[in-house]
């Protein structure tokens, strides 16, 4: 009897239409990427940055620990002795096309230099763009501190996280 009633009056269709109708009044759960960026959580692990001292010198001492700990072998460091007997970083290269964003480099860094950032957009038209060096990594830090996010969704509050 009930089945006959449902069959005659299309109640299930109306139920479905009702749900659809109710969603028209709710907030959307999807994002219109690429017109709109997805939100990033605080503990997200994105493209690395390397902190600098107030005078612009890098905090990195070139200890090779991140190179050693990196499971995907994406970090390449070359160091040498400077003219005044100081430790000099000749080369610091990070290959983002190899990086698996595990965060081990951040974990192992003894001088709190390398950190996982919140930027994630690595898209480039050729592979060479994926290898970033100390200059880019330091610039990333500067951008983060100043809030020059490429990802417009990143909130100002993250800047505070960077500065700690």
């Amino acid at each position: 009897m009930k089945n006959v009633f449902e069959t005659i009056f299309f109640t299930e269709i109306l139920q479905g239409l009702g749900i659809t109708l109710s969603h028209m009044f709710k907030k959307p759960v999807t994002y219109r990427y690429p017109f709109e960026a997805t939100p990033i959580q605080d503990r997200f692990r994105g493209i690395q940055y390397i902190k600098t001292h107030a005078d612009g010198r890098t905090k990195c001492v070139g200890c090779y620990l991140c190179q050693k700990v990196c499971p995907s072998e994406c970090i390449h460091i070359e160091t040498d002795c400077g003219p005044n007997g100081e430790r000099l970083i000749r080369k610091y290269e990070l290959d983002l096309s190899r990086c698996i964003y595990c965060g081990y480099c951040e974990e192992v860094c003894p001088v709190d230099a390398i950190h996982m950032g919140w930027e994630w957009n690595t898209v480039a038209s050729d592979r060479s763009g994926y290898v970033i060096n100390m200059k880019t990594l330091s610039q990333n830090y500067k951008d983060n501190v100043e809030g020059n996010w490429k990802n417009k969704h990143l909130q100002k509050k993250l800047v505070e996280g960077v500065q700690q």
Partner: protein
Amino acid sequence: MVTVKIDGKEVQVAPNTLILDAAKEAGVSIPTLCHDSRLNPFGACRVCLVEQVGNPKLQAACTTPVTDKMEIVTRSEKLSRVRKTAIELLLINHPLDCPVCDKGGECTLQDLTYEVGVTKVRFDAKPNDTPVDHTNPFIERDIDRCVLCGRCVRVCDEVVNIQAISFLNRGTDTIIGTSFEQPWNCEYCGQCISVCPVGSLNNRIYLFKNRPWNLDRVKSVCGLCSCGCTVDIDYEGNEVFRMKESPEEGINHGYMCAKGRFGFEFINSIKRESEAVVKAGGESKKVSFNEAVDVAVEKLKKVKDTAGADAIAVVVSPRLTNEEAFLAGKLAKDVLGTSNLFSTETNEVNPEATLEEVENSDCVTVLNIDVTESNPILGLAVRHAARTGTAPLAVFYPGYTALRRVSKKFVTGTPDEVRAAMESYAAAVAGASNEYSEWAAKLTNAERPVVIFDPYNKADVKLAQDIKKACAKVKVVPAKAKNNSVGIVDMGFGAKCPTEFAQGLESGKFKAVVVLGENLSARSVWTKSASKAAGLELLLVTDPFMSETAAMANVYIPVSTFAEKSGSFTNLEGHVQSIAKAVDKGVNTDACVVSAIAKGLGIKLPAEVSAVRGMIEKEVPLYSGINWDGGVVSYPYVFAGEVAATDGKAKGKGRFFLYPASLRLHSGSFTRWSPDLAKVYGEPMLELSVEDAKELGISAKDRVKVKGEGFEGEFLVEIEKKVSKGCIALPEDFVATAGIFCNGKSLRADIVK
């Protein structure tokens, strides 16, 4: 023998064995920091404390000898607490800069900290912060990291016997330093770096270049002098990062000299050639290896057809391996059919005593050679005999050497005076009665006497032979110069006198010359005739660098250094040791060159080490059945026949006596391409005594002219306290000085300002 029980394991050891050694016997490991088995017990760090059952006090395992029925406990709750505290106390002042410290990763203190589990120091950590000392060209000193174990002080005193460093001040102010905090003035042997358990003393050549966990290691033999030290070559990819001692291994017991430790950089030099060069009609052209070989083969064929095989000569350098020298001999004799095999070495003198015999000798005499400079590890053996042992050491040398501190008799003066003294000493050994009779008696009464001499000085060889003849038990050490000086002679390159080659060049007898690795211009026997080589039909030169001779060559082929090939070297005691390939710089070995030329001439010669060794074992009786890594060649004779008497007196006229100086930083061939050695000693310097400098009004770093009969040259002055009045010395193996010493080993000259 006494019986001791260590951690429940019973072992039988000799009386007076240290607990540490007994524990090693029992297979129990005790952590140590300040202990070094080659040095006297010290007991500074208290890390090796152990419990003795029945004794309330803890004992330091590295200083306490065992007694019978002793029972030792090395692991207990109490001991781990004590060890932990000992490490914590060391860490109070130790800066925790492991990430930037070169020792990080191979540091004993770091390992111990992990072992005992120190994660936090309970005390007020006050890391030192003194500026790092960079005054020494080779050794970086950071006294903050020092744990005052005293190993550097002890090795410098007990082994090297230079005593450059010591403990300064007392108590908490104690530091390691030089007297009056002067700059380090030492032999730069770097033994202190090798024993430092922390990063207080660092190798400046390797400083901050890499980390130990990135480096691959191969055990090889140093190719910079005839001592034949076992070394570890640390490399990453195709770059050598350091050459360091193999701890306590080899004939050198893990000691090295400045040349070996700091002079390896030439292997990575950017000045090395990578392409072969062929010169034709005044124009030089870079060609491939095969093209260069083809040109050489064609010219060799042409010379052989037109002028005969006798117009071809093969010259090898003592830097070649035994295998390469053998192949070169094969090429000359079997392929080219010439008997013109030359090298700077001759088969007049063969090795006799080993370094171990020198160390354990009970009477050592050094005739007219500065061993601590020319062969530093042989120098260490002499020092060991004279200091740790009680061997009376007599040294004859024009000018004081570092052996003066340990010698019982040091005869110095002008070269002529020293020569006369040596002659009377030899006569006294033979039975004559003169002022050296007492010293001669010491030699003849000794059980294991050793005489060290310079095999390149004919007059000295004669004296050594006279001594050997008068006293048969004397073992002689001809202190040969280069890494394979002995080996190439064994491979047949010592039968002809080097002067014969010079005459051949002068007379135009040779039309084609194959020079493997040798620099004719820098060798005193050949330097005068070297320019004649430029006009030859073929001058084929192989060398890792564009040397003076290579620049004259019409076919030049770049070749590898000792770190890039396998093979073997025979050292000054006749010890055959294998070398291992560490890196590849993209150039061929001399063996490949020889093999390729032979192939071009229609005969197959193998280039692989194992195949060549098979041939050597068959064809060289001395090496039949030899152990290629550690075998000692037994020579049928020491001196080949009666050495002709030579007049060793200084030749020419002039106010000063000029003699060849030995250099610990250079041998004039490979090492001059090392930038770090060149920084300290870049060009030949004229050693002048303090009195003469004052008299002539010359100060250090002045440029003066040296003039004698048939030679002249301008050199930088180095004022040396050790040089005797009326004497001057110049290193021999430089192009600028080879032309002087071609006139003789002992000369007279004038200084013109």
